[in-house]
């Protein structure tokens, strides 16, 4: 196995790790927080609008 093949496997492995991490984190957030709170944002406020 040469350097480039190793690099390809590393790319697959790291991609899978990052995707799994995001999924696991999203599921843990869903367990810890109330759904209503997670979706409670409103259109942004700015000093122009006086908020």
């Amino acid at each position, binding site marked *: 196995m040469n350097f480039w093949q190793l690099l390809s496997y590393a790319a697959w492995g790291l991609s899978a790790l990052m995707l799994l991490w*995001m999924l696991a984190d999203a599921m843990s957030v869903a367990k810890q927080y109330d759904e209503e*709170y*997670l*979706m409670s944002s*409103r259109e*942004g406020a*700015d000093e122009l*609008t006086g908020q």
Partner: protein
Amino acid sequence: MSNASTSAAGSERISMLKVLNPFHIWALGVGIVLVGEFMGWNFSVAKGGAYGSLIACWVIGLLYTCVAMIDSEVTSTVAAAGGQYTQAKHIIGPLMAFNVGLYLVMAYTMLEAADALVVGDLMKSGAAALGYMDLETKPFVVFTIAFLAWLNYRGVFMTLTVNFVITLIAFLAILVLFIGVDPTHSGTILKHKELLTDLPYGWIGVIASFQFGMWYYLGIEGTCQAAEEVRSAGRSIPLGTMGGMMTLLVAATLTWFICTGLMPWQYLGQAITPLYDAATLVGNTNLQILLFVATIFSAVASANGCINDASRAWFSLGRDRYMPSFFGAIHPKYRTPYRAIIFLIPIAVSFAFTGLLDQVITFSILSGLLGYTFMSINMVKFRKMWPLGSIKRGYVHPLHPFPAITLFALCVSVYFATFLGYGSTLLSIMGFYIVASIWFTIRRYKFVKRGDQFTMPWPRPEGY
């Protein structure tokens, strides 16, 4: 910086973090676009010759200057994610808002897929140059999308700070190449006198080149998506967007000047990486390496910005229930639209795995163009509904309504140009959006909470 606000009812509300400044906005806009200078713009040379491409560069530059001015004014009053979707929602109504939102998601996700394909192809070329010919591109395509999605998931500040650094390096590489070709001594390296010809296909070729002239600037309007995350939308969005547009006009003109002075139009019109080819022709290894790295950086910056923008557009559609409200969630720690980011990963990978770079890019360009066309109508209506003085504006664009009229006329000319080369693609894309509109009207609109989507403290519009 506040982490959460309290609603009128007393319950805590989550919000995105307001941490960005005008440099981040510049990095978002220029980062998405600059890859078009490294590849793609040169197909306009094949259609209209070198001078035809220069005309396209400036005419389409005018189109995007109008887009940047209009976007800057409207977004300086709407501090909300969603960009042009939010503009359409407030100014026109739900059906146009849905369509514009869908254009944004499709345009950015497809551009992201194309950028990832480019990174994979560049890795393959790099390996081939070092003696390994059989490198698979797919792992690097997936890694690019996965890593950038992960970065976007973890927070907008780091995401756009990374974009600022790599975009700046890519832009500086163009400046270094410009100095490297000794522009003050015409004839030593640059051979414009010998290489520039008349228009090979006449003025119809120039019109046809407009479609690919879009590559010089496609995506600068993406700056608006950050409106909910900048410290001051009224100041940062106009500064970042207009600064980005000036940067792109300089980069596009320099790119044209360098490449047309080194390559005959017949070759340049088909080149895959024209700026890298230009560095190779200069014969300086350091320049060659710099331009190779800059080409990868430009593609990564573009994909990064596209993930940021597509996810904000999808999040906004979810928040207003134009799409399932599940996607309208914000991460309690990183304050990003994390569900929208995750949802768009497999879609981007699917587009990338088709390998159809041409069709993916054409769909992306046409989706953007449909959005610009509606933007001109939005602007005229915006000034009628909320005349100057009725709401606070961070920026007022000059000479209204001429920029809106110019934008509309130029959009029509690009539709015609696209019809000349990609007529069936144009019609099939129109068909796709018509079917989506019918689905929205019949099946989805009943879920939209009509009152809840308008929370900006604006006065009642004139005539209502």
